């Protein structure tokens, strides 16, 4: 118990310290402002409780205008909505006044029932004054009555029916406008999503590589949701509330400007209250956010690194740190909730003050005949109806601001530059450049002859990567590409697949320039196994089938067997129906690789590209996979980018690349004999052992394979890409590492920071 109390004290002190130092309490685990922004990006507004600080748009009005422009096609609908709202507001605002009249009928009738019939109103009033009941006379003089009549029920009925009629119309119109608006908004958002989807498929790969994937994801999901919410709720409510406020103010002044002033005095008062408390609670919510982030970060670490915590017996320490942060969060969130929870009672109280004021002053004015009772009753109703729209305007404008900010981010995406459309599509659209290339198609059957003709390429102009590269790969040959890291091997693949466009020269498949081909045709002929094993959510079976959607189950299993996926699938409880999860505790990195190989296997393409794929699979399995691949590779061209000389050994042609140029071509034996770059590379694996003492050398005279990255431990590219150490020809340093302007992330582990956990 005392430990808890001590923690609580610590929590409170820490919180106060944060307050004193302001934002940015500095220690290694502190959350910076950027991280807060990231948190806001990755988490929806209601996930962590409390209102999130509304995003700010960089250029509010242009983005807002553009957002409303998306409603353009719905113009008639929107006009209808506005008209309906206006009419509804008018009726809604007018009705209480008429209700007040009804009240007057009742009160007047009541009073008049006590009077003798036959006299006129003035006579009664004068009579009262004569008998010294000046006050009663004053009050009666403000009323409308016929002595002796009693309550005029016909009139009352008429008024009530009018009011009901008005309300019915008003509510009917409100319903209609809501319905129309809802449908409109849904249509607009649907189109927005479709536009985004289409855009994503037209963006060049460089767009994805140069940005944080999580951020992109956020734009297409969170931001769209935000816009939808803003449009659905904020827009309609704002218009209605604004109009209602105006209407009510008008009516109040019309009934009695004195009472109106009293009622309105509440306005700046509540504004001040909300302002003070609101900003304080906003600060407290930010603190709560920070603390939540810190605590959640700690929980994440503890749970993800659970085995380490257990193995090193650090439960107690981690637990103590948890308690500390938990306590801090408790303090912060309690204060935030308290302050924000105060707002409503205080607002209500201000409302009551107004109510009291109206009741008293109104009562006085009725007693002195300056106002009717009905007017006061109406007034009370107005002042009650006044507060709600006020609060809504405040809340909704926040939502709207946030929605516009989200819209801005979406528009940035939609405005991004696209890749050039296929020539065939251009021709159809009539935008084909008459002086340029013509669309073409491949002759079937596709042989798989690849030719690079003086190709040049670089990711950024300042750092040239591939300069004047020429090579020819005959059908059925295996081409191994080796070289020190950063030599442009992955880029070669990017270019063949036309993920990036070359700057100069030409690449030809079976003699046809690949730029004249449709991308789908080109890529349909190339099977690719990537360095990172990207699998989609779904079962193992579905993932393999991605290679060829119309493959039968037998074909899927056959592909799995050929690539040794079948073997380990049987150790899994659900077999082929095992669902692959992203954090994939159930499937290891090596097994994922095998599945991607099976997928490519099933696709049965003319050209195979293996991009360091097998480095995550241990050497023994790799041998077996190679055997299967070899059977598949007859009459098929294969490009193999690997770091294991075992893979390279059996290749028909080895291309040695340095600085983006092919410095040597030939078979393994030829190149070794030539004593050039390849020989140097090869030897460096063994000369590295010279530094060790003789014993080690004697035992392992050459069992070193080329540096490989092992199962799944590809350097995470979520930061500045590490640079290769040492001079280029010698392959020291962790591999695969790329010098040069390789774009930020080729995501070996998909960056999930932008995804909201649901």
């Amino acid at each position, binding site marked *: 118990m005392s430990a808890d109390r001590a923690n609580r004290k610590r929590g409170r002190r820490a919180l106060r310290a944060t307050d004193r130092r302001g934002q940015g309490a500095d220690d290694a685990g502190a959350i910076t402002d950027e991280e807060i922004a990231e948190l806001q990006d990755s988490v929806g507004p209601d996930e962590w409780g409390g209102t999130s600080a509304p995003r700010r748009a960089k250029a509010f009005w242009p983005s807002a205008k553009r957002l409303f422009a998306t409603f353009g096609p719905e113009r008639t609908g929107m006009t209808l909505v506005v008209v309906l709202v206006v009419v509804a507001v008018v009726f809604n605002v007018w009705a209480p006044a008429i209700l007040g009249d009804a009240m007057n009928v009742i009160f007047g009738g009541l009073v008049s029932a006590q009077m003798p019939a036959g006299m006129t109103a003035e006579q009664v009033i004068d009579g009262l004054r004569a008998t010294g009941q000046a006050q009663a006379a004053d009050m009666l003089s403000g009323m409308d009555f016929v002595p002796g009549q009693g309550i005029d029920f016909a009139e009352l009925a008429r008024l009530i029916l009018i009011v009901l009629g008005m309300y019915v119309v008003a509510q009917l119109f409100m319903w209609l406008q809501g319905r129309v608006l809802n449908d409109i908004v849904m249509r607009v958002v649907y189109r927005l999503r479709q536009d985004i989807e289409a855009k994503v498929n037209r963006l060049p790969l460089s767009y994805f590589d140069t940005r944080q994937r999580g951020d992109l994801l956020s734009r297409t999901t969170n931001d769209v949701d935000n816009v939808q919410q803003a449009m659905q709720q904020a827009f309609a409510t704002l218009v209605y509330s604004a109009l209602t406020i105006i209407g009510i103010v008008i009516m109040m002044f019309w009934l009695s400007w004195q009472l109106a002033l009293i009622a309105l005095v509440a306005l700046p008062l509540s504004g001040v209250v909300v302002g003070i408390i609101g900003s304080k609670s906003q600060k407290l919510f930010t603190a709560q956010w920070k603390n939540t982030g810190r605590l959640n970060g700690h929980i994440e670490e503890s749970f993800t690194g659970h085995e380490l915590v257990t193995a090193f017996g650090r439960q107690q320490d981690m637990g103590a740190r948890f308690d500390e942060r938990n306590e801090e969060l408790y303090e912060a969130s309690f204060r935030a909730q308290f302050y924000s929870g105060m707002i409503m009672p205080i607002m209500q109280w201000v409302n009551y003050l107004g109510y009291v004021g109206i009741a008293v002053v109104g009562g006085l004015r009725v007693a002195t005949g300056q106002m009717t009772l009905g007017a006061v009753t109406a007034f009370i109703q107005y002042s009650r109806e006044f507060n709600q729209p006020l609060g809504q305007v405040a809340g909704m404008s926040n939502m709207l601001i946030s929605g516009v900010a989200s819209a801005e981010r979406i528009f940035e995406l939609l405005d991004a530059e696209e890749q050039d459309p296929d020539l065939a599509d251009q021709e159809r659209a009539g935008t084909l450049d008459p002086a340029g290339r013509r669309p073409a198609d491949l002759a079937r059957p596709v042989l798989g002859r690849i030719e690079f003709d003086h190709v040049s390429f670089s990711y950024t102009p300042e750092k040239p990567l591939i300069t004047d590269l020429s090579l020819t790969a005959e059908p059925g040959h295996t081409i191994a590409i080796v070289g020190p890291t950063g030599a442009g091997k992955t880029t070669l693949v990017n270019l063949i697949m036309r993920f990036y466009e070359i700057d100069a020269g030409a690449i030809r498949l079976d003699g046809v320039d690949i730029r004249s081909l449709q991308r789908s045709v080109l890529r349909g002929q190339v099977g690719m196994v990537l360095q990172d094993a990207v699998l989609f959510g779904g079962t193992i079976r579905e993932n393999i089938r991605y290679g060829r959607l119309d493959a039968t189950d037998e074909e899927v299993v056959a592909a799995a067997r050929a690539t040794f996926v079948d073997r380990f699938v049987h150790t899994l409880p659900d077999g082929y129906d095992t669902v692959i999860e992203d954090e994939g*505790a159930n499937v290891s990195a090596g097994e994922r690789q095998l599945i991607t190989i099976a997928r490519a296997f099933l696709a049965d393409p003319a050209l195979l590209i293996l991009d360091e794929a097998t480095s995550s699979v241990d*050497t023994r399995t790799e041998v077996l996979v190679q055997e299967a691949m070899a059977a598949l590779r007859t009459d098929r061209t294969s490009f193999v980018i690997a770091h294991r000389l075992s893979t390279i050994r059996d290749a028909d042609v080895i291309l040695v690349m340095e600085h983006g140029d092919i410095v040597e071509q030939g078979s393994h034996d030829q190149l070794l004999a030539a004593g050039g770059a390849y020989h140097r590379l090869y030897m460096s694996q063994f000369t590295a052992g010279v530094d060790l003492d003789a014993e080690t050398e004697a035992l392992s005279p050459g069992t070193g394979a080329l540096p490989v990255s092992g199962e799944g431990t590809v350097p995470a590219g979520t930061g500045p890409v590490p640079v290769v150490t040492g001079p280029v020809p010698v392959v020291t340093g962790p591999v695969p590492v790329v010098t040069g302007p390789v774009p930020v992330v080729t995501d070996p582990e998909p960056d999930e920071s932008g995804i909201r956990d649901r």
Partner: protein
Amino acid sequence: MLWKLVRHYGRPYWRSVVAVLVLQLAATLATLYLPSLNADIIDDGIARGDTGYIWRTGAVMLGVAIVQVATAIAAVWFGARVAMALGRDVRKAVYSQVDGFSAEEVGRFGAPTLITRGTNDVQQVQMVVLMALNFMVMVPIMSIGGIIMAIQEDPGLSWLVWVSVPLLLVIVGLLVRTLMPLFERMQDNIDGVNGVMREQIMGIRVVRAFVRERHEAQRFTDANAALTDTSVRIGRLFVLMGPVITMVLHLATAAVLWFGGLRVDQGLVEVGALTAFMQYLLQILMAVMMGTFMFMMLPRAVVCARRIGEVLSTSGSLREPVAPRVPERQEGRVELRDVRFAYPGAESPVLDGISFIAEPGRTTAIIGSTGSGKSTLVNLIPRLYDATGGEVLIDGVPVTEQARASLTAAVGLVPQKPFLFSGSVADNLRFGNPDATDAELWAALDTAQATEFVRDRTTGEGEAARTGLDSAISQGGTNVSGGQRQRLCIARALVARPRVYVFDDSFSALDVTTDARLRQALTGYTRGATTIIVAQRVSTITDADQILVLDEGRIVGRGTHEELLATSETYREIVDSQISAEEVA
């Protein structure tokens, strides 16, 4: 489950809960009193022309309003306290529970969902409790109190209450009931749309390489259409709600006026009482409406509570021994006797019939293909899992009979996926031994070939800059490269100076040179301890004293490098696939 959770963790705060109830009661009563005072102003003040009375009653109203706000704020204070404290306690409970899990339970749930359950789900429950305390106390009091007050003002009109309140309840109830399943469906739809988008963005290369753009676009359109459909339906219902409810309120008001007017005429009720009645009726209806909407929040919290309950009711399968035994001779001798491990319900076991002894002062290496069970095997040694058959012994005592503390002291683990915690480099290294001196840390770093990069490392800017051992490691260790992370993880295990070192594929991100240097330095540092290495590269293990070849969960070869070359075909295959001596010539 939600109720159980709330009751159990809310119990220590019963006093505050009572305070909330009492204060809310007071606040609500105050709210209810005001219309009655207003009625008095009208009936006794205006009707009689007694302005003095009006002023006096006004003052009373003011006083009541002040009482109202004071009690309301106090209620908020207590309510916030209880809800947040409950959240804190549940979080702690979940955390402690997961702490006691074995790697199997963590693997079964998956770390991400455990994280969600300990954070977001608790948040949901907490918010519902807060809202319940704030509103759900007020709602019944307001409704019942309002009914009482209203009837008091004019019993003859009470039938209006009995008609309008149930009418409203029915209408709102119907709407809410239709909405609930739609909300759930919308959540699924949102997950669907976002899921497709996410796969496309994360796997954009694969999508394009396999020319699946159209396929994905179609998937997206389907998901989008489903979402839009559900959203439209929800929207239409929502839109109906406001007008319908408002109409009920207006109808009630009109009825009051008409029937009340009749009664006023007959002298059965006074005008002021009528106005009060009207106001009470409205208050009741508003309270009922709010209450019904609060119920909409419940289902999500119920789901969250269930998820939390699942965690809390799972006990770690690793049981601490009741009477822990400490081994007599603490040398670090590891023995596996006929060990078997299978996941529940799997067709084939991951490990079967594993028996070997790893002697202190020697290196035992384990090599095998993907999925052969290597990692599972070595995870049994620090007792991250319990074997489903056979025994794992350290220094002659089964690990199941040793205390966690004794196991921690005995075994140092470098796992396959190098994981660092946020904090400084020194913090991470001291994870193995909090009392290690800086000199000891540097010694470990030297052995792990990590001295250079740590020494020259700086994080932060200006005043917040830290260098060397104090430099910061970001969450997940993302601000160091893979190779550096591995070396730091190795150093961490070294600092602990255990009797048994377990390296699970810990050298894979290192190039051959560094690998060799590190292992050489290790031999010196770990002299006398047992070393167990799992590796892919034959070069890493050729000088091991004992090599175990694992295939499909069984040991198919055992011996030194030379012996295995001669006797084991599997081993030869592996070696052959990496460069062999003959090639050089």
